[in-house]
Protein backbone atom coordinates (compact mmCIF):
# COMPACT_ATOMS: atom_id res chain seq x y z
CA UNK A 1 0.00 0.00 0.00
CA UNK A 2 2.96 2.25 0.59
CA UNK A 3 5.17 2.49 -2.42
CA UNK A 4 7.96 4.48 -0.80
CA UNK A 5 10.83 3.09 1.22
CA UNK A 6 11.42 6.37 3.02
CA UNK A 7 9.04 9.25 3.26
CA UNK A 8 9.65 12.57 4.94
CA UNK A 9 6.65 14.81 5.52
CA UNK A 10 6.78 18.51 6.43
CA UNK A 11 9.94 18.00 8.44
CA UNK A 12 11.24 20.96 10.42
CA UNK A 13 14.15 21.41 12.78
CA UNK A 14 14.80 24.40 15.04
CA UNK A 15 17.84 25.12 17.12
CA UNK A 16 17.90 27.26 20.21
CA UNK A 17 20.78 29.71 19.82
CA UNK A 18 21.05 32.12 22.76
CA UNK A 19 17.66 33.86 22.99
CA UNK A 20 16.96 33.21 19.34
CA UNK A 21 15.38 30.31 17.51
CA UNK A 22 17.22 29.26 14.36
CA UNK A 23 15.22 27.31 11.84
CA UNK A 24 17.57 24.90 10.08
CA UNK A 25 14.94 22.90 8.21
CA UNK A 26 11.42 23.89 7.26
CA UNK A 27 8.78 22.01 5.33
CA UNK A 28 11.08 19.31 4.00
CA UNK A 29 9.23 16.73 1.90
CA UNK A 30 10.95 13.90 0.15
CA UNK A 31 10.43 10.28 -0.73
CA UNK A 32 12.82 7.51 -1.70
CA UNK A 33 11.65 4.46 -3.60
CA UNK A 34 13.00 1.05 -2.74
CA UNK A 35 16.59 0.63 -3.96
CA UNK A 36 16.80 4.17 -5.24
CA UNK A 37 20.03 6.16 -5.04
CA UNK A 38 19.21 9.78 -4.24
CA UNK A 39 21.62 12.63 -3.58
CA UNK A 40 20.91 15.63 -1.47
CA UNK A 41 22.92 18.62 -2.55
CA UNK A 42 23.18 22.15 -1.20
CA UNK A 43 25.59 24.86 -0.16
CA UNK A 44 27.44 24.43 3.12
CA UNK A 45 25.24 25.28 6.08
CA UNK A 46 21.98 24.65 4.21
CA UNK A 47 21.01 21.95 6.66
CA UNK A 48 21.61 18.87 4.53
CA UNK A 49 23.74 17.19 7.18
CA UNK A 50 21.18 18.14 9.82
CA UNK A 51 18.49 16.50 7.71
CA UNK A 52 20.54 13.33 7.43
CA UNK A 53 21.23 13.34 11.14
CA UNK A 54 17.50 13.70 11.86
CA UNK A 55 16.78 10.81 9.48
CA UNK A 56 19.40 8.71 11.25
CA UNK A 57 17.59 9.47 14.49
CA UNK A 58 20.56 11.22 16.08
CA UNK A 59 18.59 14.47 16.36
CA UNK A 60 14.92 14.91 17.09
CA UNK A 61 12.83 16.66 14.45
CA UNK A 62 10.93 19.71 15.73
CA UNK A 63 8.07 19.15 13.29
CA UNK A 64 6.95 16.57 10.80
CA UNK A 65 7.26 12.83 10.42
CA UNK A 66 9.65 10.28 8.97
CA UNK A 67 8.26 7.04 7.64
CA UNK A 68 10.26 3.93 6.88
CA UNK A 69 8.26 1.35 4.96
CA UNK A 70 5.21 3.34 5.96
CA UNK A 71 5.88 3.18 9.69
CA UNK A 72 7.02 6.23 11.66
CA UNK A 73 10.57 6.06 13.03
CA UNK A 74 11.83 7.60 16.23
CA UNK A 75 15.39 7.58 17.44
CA UNK A 76 18.31 5.73 15.87
CA UNK A 77 18.16 2.11 14.83
CA UNK A 78 19.80 -0.63 12.80
CA UNK A 79 17.28 -0.17 10.00
CA UNK A 80 19.22 2.94 8.98
CA UNK A 81 22.99 2.76 8.45
CA UNK A 82 25.04 5.95 8.54
CA UNK A 83 28.41 6.59 6.92
CA UNK A 84 30.02 9.65 8.47
CA UNK A 85 32.19 12.26 6.81
CA UNK A 86 34.76 11.95 9.60
CA UNK A 87 36.70 8.74 10.07
CA UNK A 88 34.75 6.69 12.56
CA UNK A 89 36.66 3.41 12.51
CA UNK A 90 37.73 2.51 16.01
CA UNK A 91 41.52 2.80 16.12
CA UNK A 92 41.85 -0.07 18.61
CA UNK A 93 40.21 -2.59 16.28
CA UNK A 94 41.44 -4.07 13.02
CA UNK A 95 39.45 -3.51 9.84
CA UNK A 96 37.92 -6.95 10.28
CA UNK A 97 37.06 -6.34 13.95
CA UNK A 98 35.59 -2.94 13.08
CA UNK A 99 33.11 -4.57 10.73
CA UNK A 100 32.40 -7.37 13.19
CA UNK A 101 31.69 -4.74 15.85
CA UNK A 102 28.69 -3.56 13.84
CA UNK A 103 27.48 -7.15 13.44
CA UNK A 104 27.31 -7.85 17.17
CA UNK A 105 23.75 -6.52 17.25
CA UNK A 106 22.67 -9.09 14.68
CA UNK A 107 21.66 -12.48 15.92
CA UNK A 108 24.67 -14.23 14.52
CA UNK A 109 27.27 -16.74 15.71
CA UNK A 110 30.82 -15.45 16.04
CA UNK A 111 32.05 -17.58 13.12
CA UNK A 112 29.26 -16.21 10.98
CA UNK A 113 30.16 -12.64 11.92
CA UNK A 114 33.73 -13.27 10.82
CA UNK A 115 32.56 -14.60 7.49
CA UNK A 116 30.13 -11.74 6.83
CA UNK A 117 32.79 -9.18 7.75
CA UNK A 118 35.30 -10.79 5.39
CA UNK A 119 32.72 -10.86 2.59
CA UNK A 120 32.09 -7.16 3.00
CA UNK A 121 35.76 -6.28 3.13
CA UNK A 122 36.10 -8.19 -0.13
CA UNK A 123 33.20 -6.18 -1.53
CA UNK A 124 35.18 -2.96 -1.03
CA UNK A 125 38.39 -4.60 -2.20
CA UNK A 126 40.12 -4.66 1.18
CA UNK A 127 40.21 -8.38 1.99
CA UNK A 128 44.01 -8.17 2.18
CA UNK A 129 43.79 -5.47 4.85
CA UNK A 130 41.46 -7.36 7.20
CA UNK A 131 44.05 -7.44 9.98
CA UNK A 132 45.27 -3.86 9.47
CA UNK A 133 44.59 -1.20 12.08
CA UNK A 134 43.03 2.09 10.93
CA UNK A 135 46.36 3.89 11.53
CA UNK A 136 47.79 1.70 8.76
CA UNK A 137 45.04 2.61 6.28
CA UNK A 138 44.76 5.65 4.01
CA UNK A 139 41.76 7.96 4.24
CA UNK A 140 40.10 6.31 1.25
CA UNK A 141 40.64 2.83 2.68
CA UNK A 142 39.16 3.89 6.01
CA UNK A 143 36.01 5.10 4.27
CA UNK A 144 35.85 1.86 2.30
CA UNK A 145 35.90 -0.09 5.56
CA UNK A 146 33.25 2.29 6.90
CA UNK A 147 31.06 1.53 3.88
CA UNK A 148 31.65 -2.21 4.31
CA UNK A 149 30.75 -1.85 7.97
CA UNK A 150 27.52 0.03 7.21
CA UNK A 151 26.46 -2.48 4.53
CA UNK A 152 27.39 -5.55 6.59
CA UNK A 153 24.46 -5.41 8.99
CA UNK A 154 21.98 -4.90 6.16
CA UNK A 155 20.18 -1.69 7.05
CA UNK A 156 17.04 -0.88 5.07
CA UNK A 157 18.46 2.49 4.09
CA UNK A 158 22.03 3.70 3.78
CA UNK A 159 22.56 7.33 4.78
CA UNK A 160 25.85 8.83 3.63
CA UNK A 161 27.00 12.19 4.96
CA UNK A 162 29.59 13.49 2.49
CA UNK A 163 31.58 10.30 2.98
CA UNK A 164 34.26 11.37 0.51
CA UNK A 165 34.41 14.99 1.68
CA UNK A 166 37.75 14.57 3.43
CA UNK A 167 39.46 12.74 0.57
CA UNK A 168 41.67 14.13 -2.18
CA UNK A 169 40.16 14.62 -5.64
CA UNK A 170 41.66 11.49 -7.21
CA UNK A 171 40.76 9.17 -4.35
CA UNK A 172 37.31 10.66 -4.43
CA UNK A 173 36.81 9.65 -8.04
CA UNK A 174 37.93 6.11 -7.31
CA UNK A 175 35.54 5.95 -4.36
CA UNK A 176 32.64 7.24 -6.44
CA UNK A 177 33.21 4.51 -9.01
CA UNK A 178 33.53 1.88 -6.29
CA UNK A 179 30.32 3.01 -4.58
CA UNK A 180 28.52 3.10 -7.93
CA UNK A 181 29.59 -0.40 -8.87
CA UNK A 182 28.66 -1.76 -5.43
CA UNK A 183 25.24 -0.17 -5.71
CA UNK A 184 24.75 -1.48 -9.23
CA UNK A 185 25.43 -5.03 -8.05
CA UNK A 186 23.71 -4.93 -4.66
CA UNK A 187 20.86 -2.48 -4.86
CA UNK A 188 20.00 -0.70 -1.65
CA UNK A 189 18.13 2.50 -0.85
CA UNK A 190 20.71 5.28 -0.44
CA UNK A 191 20.44 8.91 0.56
CA UNK A 192 23.77 10.53 -0.21
CA UNK A 193 24.62 14.04 0.99
CA UNK A 194 27.14 15.99 -1.07
CA UNK A 195 28.12 19.49 -2.00
CA UNK A 196 29.89 18.34 -5.15
CA UNK A 197 27.63 18.63 -8.20
CA UNK A 198 29.65 16.25 -10.38
CA UNK A 199 29.72 13.62 -7.66
CA UNK A 200 25.98 13.88 -7.04
CA UNK A 201 25.08 13.57 -10.72
CA UNK A 202 27.49 10.70 -11.26
CA UNK A 203 26.33 8.46 -8.42
CA UNK A 204 22.58 9.18 -8.32
CA UNK A 205 19.29 8.28 -9.91
CA UNK A 206 17.85 11.53 -8.65
CA UNK A 207 19.35 14.73 -7.20
CA UNK A 208 17.51 16.86 -4.66
CA UNK A 209 18.69 20.46 -4.44
CA UNK A 210 18.24 22.19 -1.10
CA UNK A 211 17.67 25.88 -0.43
CA UNK A 212 19.66 27.83 2.10
CA UNK A 213 18.57 28.17 5.69
CA UNK A 214 15.89 27.29 6.41
CA UNK A 215 16.63 24.28 4.25
CA UNK A 216 13.98 22.66 2.15
CA UNK A 217 13.89 20.79 -1.12
CA UNK A 218 13.99 23.35 -3.90
CA UNK A 219 14.07 21.15 -6.96
CA UNK A 220 14.52 17.55 -7.91
CA UNK A 221 16.33 16.47 -11.02
CA UNK A 222 16.05 12.99 -12.52
CA UNK A 223 19.38 11.59 -13.63
CA UNK A 224 18.52 9.24 -16.44
CA UNK A 225 22.08 8.20 -17.21
CA UNK A 226 22.45 4.53 -18.09
CA UNK A 227 24.05 1.92 -15.85
CA UNK A 228 26.69 0.70 -15.37
CA UNK A 229 28.33 4.07 -15.05
CA UNK A 230 31.97 4.95 -15.37
CA UNK A 231 33.90 8.18 -15.33
CA UNK A 232 34.05 8.15 -19.15
CA UNK A 233 30.52 9.48 -18.95
CA UNK A 234 31.72 12.74 -17.51
CA UNK A 235 32.58 14.02 -20.98
CA UNK A 236 29.26 13.09 -22.62
CA UNK A 237 26.77 15.86 -23.56
CA UNK A 238 24.05 14.12 -21.49
CA UNK A 239 26.20 14.37 -18.39
CA UNK A 240 27.11 17.98 -19.16
CA UNK A 241 23.44 18.89 -19.57
CA UNK A 242 22.46 17.35 -16.19
CA UNK A 243 25.52 18.84 -14.53
CA UNK A 244 24.50 22.24 -15.88
CA UNK A 245 20.95 21.92 -14.61
CA UNK A 246 21.98 20.96 -11.08
CA UNK A 247 24.66 23.63 -11.04
CA UNK A 248 22.22 26.29 -12.21
CA UNK A 249 19.77 25.29 -9.51
CA UNK A 250 22.35 25.42 -6.76
CA UNK A 251 24.05 28.55 -8.11
CA UNK A 252 21.31 30.89 -6.99
CA UNK A 253 21.63 29.48 -3.46
CA UNK A 254 25.41 29.77 -3.47
CA UNK A 255 25.30 33.37 -4.57
CA UNK A 256 22.79 34.20 -1.91
CA UNK A 257 24.74 32.46 0.81
CA UNK A 258 27.89 34.28 -0.36
CA UNK A 259 26.11 37.60 0.08
CA UNK A 260 25.07 38.37 -3.49
CA UNK A 261 21.48 39.07 -4.53
CA UNK A 262 19.64 35.90 -5.50
CA UNK A 263 18.93 37.06 -9.01
CA UNK A 264 22.41 38.44 -9.76
Amino acid at each position, binding site marked *: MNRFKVEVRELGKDFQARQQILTALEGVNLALSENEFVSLIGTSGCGKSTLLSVL*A*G*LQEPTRGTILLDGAPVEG*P*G*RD*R*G*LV*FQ*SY*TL*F*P*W*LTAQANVE*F*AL*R*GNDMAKRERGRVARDHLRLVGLEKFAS*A*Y*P*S*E*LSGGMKQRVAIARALS*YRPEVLLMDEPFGALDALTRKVMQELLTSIWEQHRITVLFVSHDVEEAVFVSERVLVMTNRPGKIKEEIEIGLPRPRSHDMLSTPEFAELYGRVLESIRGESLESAGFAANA
Partner: protein
Amino acid sequence: MLRIGGSIETHWFLGIAVAVFAALLGLWYLATGIALVQPLFLPSPSTVVDTLIDQAKSGQLWSDAKVSIFRIMVGFAVASAMAIPIGVLIGTYRFWEAAIEPLVDFIRYMPVVAFVPLTILWSGTGDMQKFLIIWIGTFFQQVLLIMDNTKRVPLDFVDFGRTLGMKDQSILARIIVPSAAPGIWDSMRISLGWAWTWLVLAELVAATSGLGYRITTAQRFFETDLIIGYILVLGALGLFFDQTMKFLSRRFFKYEEAGR
Protein backbone atom coordinates in the same frame (compact mmCIF):
# COMPACT_ATOMS: atom_id res chain seq x y z
CA MET B 1 68.52 21.83 13.77
CA LEU B 2 68.14 25.50 14.65
CA ARG B 3 65.16 26.17 12.42
CA ILE B 4 61.51 26.19 13.51
CA GLY B 5 60.10 22.82 12.57
CA GLY B 6 63.58 21.61 11.62
CA SER B 7 64.64 18.00 11.97
CA ILE B 8 67.47 16.36 13.90
CA GLU B 9 69.17 13.03 13.48
CA THR B 10 69.11 10.59 16.38
CA HIS B 11 72.88 10.54 16.91
CA TRP B 12 72.96 14.33 17.06
CA PHE B 13 70.09 14.41 19.52
CA LEU B 14 71.75 11.87 21.79
CA GLY B 15 75.13 13.52 21.43
CA ILE B 16 73.83 16.94 22.44
CA ALA B 17 71.87 15.53 25.38
CA VAL B 18 74.90 13.62 26.68
CA ALA B 19 77.13 16.66 26.18
CA VAL B 20 74.89 18.82 28.38
CA PHE B 21 74.96 16.21 31.15
CA ALA B 22 78.73 15.88 30.82
CA ALA B 23 79.23 19.65 30.86
CA LEU B 24 77.23 20.03 34.07
CA LEU B 25 79.11 17.15 35.67
CA GLY B 26 82.42 18.71 34.56
CA LEU B 27 81.41 22.02 36.06
CA TRP B 28 80.55 20.27 39.30
CA TYR B 29 83.97 18.52 39.34
CA LEU B 30 85.70 21.79 38.60
CA ALA B 31 83.87 23.80 41.26
CA THR B 32 84.65 21.21 43.96
CA GLY B 33 88.13 20.39 42.61
CA ILE B 34 89.49 23.93 42.86
CA ALA B 35 87.68 24.37 46.18
CA LEU B 36 85.43 27.11 44.83
CA VAL B 37 82.76 25.87 47.23
CA GLN B 38 83.17 24.16 50.57
CA PRO B 39 82.42 20.40 50.60
CA LEU B 40 79.86 21.10 53.33
CA PHE B 41 77.72 22.92 50.78
CA LEU B 42 78.61 20.95 47.70
CA PRO B 43 80.69 17.77 47.95
CA SER B 44 82.46 16.46 44.88
CA PRO B 45 80.68 14.01 42.55
CA SER B 46 82.99 11.20 43.58
CA THR B 47 82.15 11.71 47.27
CA VAL B 48 78.44 11.53 46.43
CA VAL B 49 78.93 8.34 44.43
CA ASP B 50 81.05 6.77 47.19
CA THR B 51 78.40 7.58 49.77
CA LEU B 52 75.69 6.07 47.61
CA ILE B 53 77.75 2.92 47.12
CA ASP B 54 78.22 2.64 50.88
CA GLN B 55 74.50 3.09 51.42
CA ALA B 56 73.74 0.48 48.82
CA LYS B 57 76.22 -1.99 50.33
CA SER B 58 74.87 -1.59 53.84
CA GLY B 59 71.35 -2.19 52.53
CA GLN B 60 70.18 1.18 53.78
CA LEU B 61 69.47 2.57 50.31
CA TRP B 62 67.38 -0.40 49.34
CA SER B 63 65.34 -0.48 52.55
CA ASP B 64 64.68 3.26 52.28
CA ALA B 65 63.69 2.96 48.62
CA LYS B 66 61.49 -0.07 49.32
CA VAL B 67 59.46 1.83 51.89
CA SER B 68 59.00 4.81 49.58
CA ILE B 69 58.12 2.72 46.54
CA PHE B 70 55.58 0.77 48.58
CA ARG B 71 53.95 4.00 49.75
CA ILE B 72 53.77 5.45 46.28
CA MET B 73 52.38 2.25 44.80
CA VAL B 74 49.55 2.01 47.33
CA GLY B 75 48.71 5.73 47.35
CA PHE B 76 48.83 5.99 43.59
CA ALA B 77 46.87 2.78 43.01
CA VAL B 78 44.08 3.85 45.36
CA ALA B 79 43.93 7.33 43.80
CA SER B 80 43.86 5.90 40.27
CA ALA B 81 41.31 3.21 41.05
CA MET B 82 38.99 5.94 42.28
CA ALA B 83 39.84 8.59 39.69
CA ILE B 84 39.38 6.48 36.56
CA PRO B 85 35.71 5.57 37.05
CA ILE B 86 34.83 9.00 38.41
CA GLY B 87 36.72 10.84 35.65
CA VAL B 88 35.11 8.72 32.93
CA LEU B 89 31.70 9.23 34.48
CA ILE B 90 31.93 13.03 34.67
CA GLY B 91 33.45 13.18 31.20
CA THR B 92 30.49 11.24 29.82
CA TYR B 93 27.41 12.46 31.69
CA ARG B 94 26.71 16.15 32.17
CA PHE B 95 24.76 15.37 35.34
CA TRP B 96 27.80 13.87 37.03
CA GLU B 97 29.97 16.64 35.69
CA ALA B 98 27.71 19.21 37.35
CA ALA B 99 27.68 17.21 40.57
CA ILE B 100 31.40 16.53 40.85
CA GLU B 101 33.54 18.72 38.63
CA PRO B 102 33.12 22.09 40.44
CA LEU B 103 33.84 20.44 43.79
CA VAL B 104 36.96 18.69 42.50
CA ASP B 105 38.10 21.89 40.83
CA PHE B 106 37.75 23.73 44.14
CA ILE B 107 39.64 21.14 46.18
CA ARG B 108 42.33 20.96 43.51
CA TYR B 109 43.34 24.52 44.31
CA MET B 110 43.83 23.79 47.99
CA PRO B 111 47.58 23.38 48.48
CA VAL B 112 48.48 19.79 49.29
CA VAL B 113 51.13 21.06 51.70
CA ALA B 114 48.43 22.57 53.86
CA PHE B 115 46.92 19.13 54.36
CA VAL B 116 50.07 17.73 55.94
CA PRO B 117 49.30 18.88 59.53
CA LEU B 118 45.70 17.75 59.17
CA THR B 119 46.64 14.30 57.90
CA ILE B 120 49.12 13.89 60.76
CA LEU B 121 46.33 14.74 63.20
CA TRP B 122 44.07 12.22 61.51
CA SER B 123 46.39 9.33 60.98
CA GLY B 124 49.72 9.91 62.70
CA THR B 125 53.05 9.74 60.90
CA GLY B 126 52.87 6.20 59.55
CA ASP B 127 52.17 4.82 56.09
CA MET B 128 48.52 5.79 56.17
CA GLN B 129 49.40 9.47 56.34
CA LYS B 130 51.70 9.08 53.30
CA PHE B 131 48.93 7.34 51.38
CA LEU B 132 46.60 10.17 52.27
CA ILE B 133 48.97 12.89 51.08
CA ILE B 134 49.69 11.06 47.83
CA TRP B 135 45.97 10.54 47.36
CA ILE B 136 45.09 14.20 47.99
CA GLY B 137 47.88 15.32 45.68
CA THR B 138 46.99 13.07 42.74
CA PHE B 139 43.34 12.04 42.90
CA PHE B 140 41.79 15.44 42.22
CA GLN B 141 44.19 16.21 39.39
CA GLN B 142 43.63 12.77 37.86
CA VAL B 143 39.87 13.16 37.91
CA LEU B 144 40.07 16.34 35.85
CA LEU B 145 42.66 14.97 33.43
CA ILE B 146 40.64 11.80 32.88
CA MET B 147 37.46 13.83 32.42
CA ASP B 148 39.25 15.69 29.64
CA ASN B 149 40.50 12.44 28.06
CA THR B 150 36.95 11.14 28.06
CA LYS B 151 35.48 14.30 26.60
CA ARG B 152 37.91 14.06 23.72
CA VAL B 153 36.27 10.86 22.44
CA PRO B 154 34.83 11.93 19.06
CA LEU B 155 31.09 12.50 19.24
CA ASP B 156 30.75 10.65 15.93
CA PHE B 157 32.00 7.47 17.66
CA VAL B 158 29.12 7.76 20.12
CA ASP B 159 26.66 8.59 17.33
CA PHE B 160 27.87 5.58 15.39
CA GLY B 161 27.15 3.39 18.41
CA ARG B 162 23.67 4.90 18.55
CA THR B 163 22.99 4.07 14.89
CA LEU B 164 23.89 0.47 15.76
CA GLY B 165 21.13 0.57 18.34
CA MET B 166 23.56 0.31 21.26
CA LYS B 167 22.38 1.30 24.72
CA ASP B 168 24.21 4.07 26.60
CA GLN B 169 25.83 1.64 29.02
CA SER B 170 27.26 -0.43 26.25
CA ILE B 171 28.42 2.70 24.35
CA LEU B 172 30.24 3.71 27.53
CA ALA B 173 31.89 0.33 28.03
CA ARG B 174 32.63 -0.63 24.45
CA ILE B 175 33.26 2.72 22.74
CA ILE B 176 34.06 5.51 25.21
CA VAL B 177 36.36 3.61 27.56
CA PRO B 178 38.54 1.95 24.91
CA SER B 179 38.65 5.17 22.93
CA ALA B 180 39.80 7.22 25.93
CA ALA B 181 42.16 4.54 27.26
CA PRO B 182 45.44 5.75 25.68
CA GLY B 183 44.82 9.29 26.93
CA ILE B 184 43.89 8.02 30.39
CA TRP B 185 47.07 5.99 30.57
CA ASP B 186 49.09 9.07 29.66
CA SER B 187 47.33 11.09 32.38
CA MET B 188 48.25 8.38 34.87
CA ARG B 189 51.86 8.59 33.79
CA ILE B 190 51.92 12.35 34.30
CA SER B 191 50.24 12.15 37.70
CA LEU B 192 52.65 9.43 38.84
CA GLY B 193 55.41 12.02 38.51
CA TRP B 194 53.54 14.37 40.83
CA ALA B 195 52.92 11.55 43.30
CA TRP B 196 56.69 11.33 43.89
CA THR B 197 56.79 14.98 44.87
CA TRP B 198 53.98 14.57 47.40
CA LEU B 199 55.50 11.41 48.85
CA VAL B 200 58.87 13.02 49.49
CA LEU B 201 57.18 16.06 50.95
CA ALA B 202 55.26 13.89 53.39
CA GLU B 203 58.41 11.97 54.31
CA LEU B 204 60.38 15.16 54.86
CA VAL B 205 57.85 16.59 57.27
CA ALA B 206 57.12 13.61 59.46
CA ALA B 207 58.33 10.06 58.97
CA THR B 208 60.49 7.38 60.50
CA SER B 209 61.53 5.73 57.26
CA GLY B 210 61.77 6.29 53.52
CA LEU B 211 63.99 8.23 51.15
CA GLY B 212 62.62 11.61 52.24
CA TYR B 213 63.13 10.73 55.90
CA ARG B 214 66.78 9.81 55.21
CA ILE B 215 67.29 13.22 53.63
CA THR B 216 66.05 15.05 56.75
CA THR B 217 68.27 13.03 59.06
CA ALA B 218 71.21 13.64 56.74
CA GLN B 219 70.56 17.36 57.05
CA ARG B 220 70.86 17.14 60.84
CA PHE B 221 74.33 15.65 60.53
CA PHE B 222 75.44 17.95 57.68
CA GLU B 223 75.73 14.93 55.35
CA THR B 224 75.37 16.95 52.19
CA ASP B 225 76.74 14.10 50.07
CA LEU B 226 73.94 11.84 51.27
CA ILE B 227 71.29 14.49 50.57
CA ILE B 228 72.51 15.04 47.03
CA GLY B 229 72.91 11.31 46.46
CA TYR B 230 69.32 10.62 47.53
CA ILE B 231 67.96 13.47 45.43
CA LEU B 232 69.67 11.88 42.43
CA VAL B 233 68.20 8.50 43.36
CA LEU B 234 64.72 10.05 43.56
CA GLY B 235 65.20 11.57 40.12
CA ALA B 236 66.36 8.24 38.72
CA LEU B 237 63.41 6.39 40.29
CA GLY B 238 60.96 8.90 38.86
CA LEU B 239 62.52 8.56 35.42
CA PHE B 240 62.45 4.79 35.67
CA PHE B 241 58.75 4.69 36.51
CA ASP B 242 57.95 7.19 33.77
CA GLN B 243 59.82 5.18 31.15
CA THR B 244 58.15 1.99 32.34
CA MET B 245 54.75 3.60 31.90
CA LYS B 246 55.75 4.79 28.43
CA PHE B 247 56.98 1.33 27.52
CA LEU B 248 53.75 -0.28 28.72
CA SER B 249 51.75 2.31 26.80
CA ARG B 250 53.49 1.31 23.59
CA ARG B 251 52.68 -2.31 24.36
CA PHE B 252 49.03 -1.76 25.28
CA PHE B 253 48.24 0.73 22.53
CA LYS B 254 50.34 -0.69 19.73
CA TYR B 255 47.57 0.07 17.26
CA GLU B 256 48.16 3.80 17.62
CA GLU B 257 51.53 3.69 15.94
CA ALA B 258 51.00 0.65 13.76
CA GLY B 259 51.12 2.72 10.61
CA ARG B 260 53.73 5.25 11.69
